């Protein structure tokens, strides 16, 4: 548990991975507005050169920055964000990767829902399920 952040170290962390840095940052602001500092939150967007895309290193850094034993729920937008997040989990490796879950949920709406659930102290499984209620059919 990270004492610096009060009780949020016990809550599931949230990572937002968009192709667009603007989408990622704006989504993070919307999440913050709902949950304040109660949830560890990190975002990344843009390929390694800053264009639209994702960077595995940036995703790894984001996942590690919100890491706690409660786990991490990851919200992604399109395909490349998902597969690069999966790669990031593999690089982080066991045992931590087992506590990182990529939500099959829309990035903006899912992030707000997941974070709100996380702020209530719910388990990783519950946080993911809450986000996924919003997911594609």
């Amino acid at each position, binding site marked *: 548990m990270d004492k610096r952040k009060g009780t949020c170290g016990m809550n599931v962390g949230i990572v937002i991975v968009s192709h667009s840095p603007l989408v990622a940052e704006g989504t993070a602001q919307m999440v913050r507005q709902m949950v304040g500092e109660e949830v560890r939150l990190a975002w990344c967007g843009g390929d390694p050169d800053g264009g639209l895309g994702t960077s*595995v290193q940036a995703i790894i850094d984001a996942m590690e920055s919100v890491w706690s034993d409660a786990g991490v729920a990851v919200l992604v937008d399109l395909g490349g964000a998902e597969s690069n997040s999966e*790669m990031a989990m593999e690089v982080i490796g066991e045992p931590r990767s087992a506590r990182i879950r990529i939500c099959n949920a829309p990035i903006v709406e899912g992030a707000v829902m997941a974070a709100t659930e996380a702020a209530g102290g719910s388990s990783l499984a519950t946080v993911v399920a809450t986000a996924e209620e919003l997911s594609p059919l």
Partner: protein
Amino acid sequence: MSKTMTRLTSEDMKALIGAMQAAIAENAERLTALDQAIGDGDHGINMKRGFDAIAADADAICDKPTPQALSAAGMKLVMSVGGASGPLFGTLFMTLGKSLPEDFECGAFADAFAKAVDAVAARGKSSAGQKTMLDVLYPVSDALAAGKSVGEVAAVAAEAAEATVPMEAKRGRASFLGERSIGHMDPGSCSCSLLVNTIAAWISAKEHAA
């Protein structure tokens, strides 16, 4: 590829990396144009970033034995490409590295390649016929398993890339276009064919020289 045991020297690896980087750089605009038609128009940029990253670290990569060198090259792609193709090509090279013995002959290479292609399919949650790079990788894998010559394998790759033109995409961004994805070559398939042909040309040249 010769039927005898092969070990790629550090110089061989460097030459192969240089050839692949050059081929991607020369064709980057074409790859990007293909991706503009049925995707987000970055495939050439992505692939170039990936192979430039490998080339920039070629000395360190090529100091390693072939299997580890392949894995390191794959990891470079993973970390630098930035698009869906990064984890896929990265997985191809990394699995090849994991599956290949230090000294290998054709059969061992074909086996390792088959495993690598399966790993790509698992990574992409995809299968043959969905208008993706797998539609080149599987035919290439089959040709290797059948012991086809280097020239034959290269031809199979080029034909397979062409054969993606009439397909409808079911994976990746091109799938958003539905039927409108028909009539364009899949960019990732084009990259695969390009790389296979580049490697084949290098091997042929080497065999001729020998």
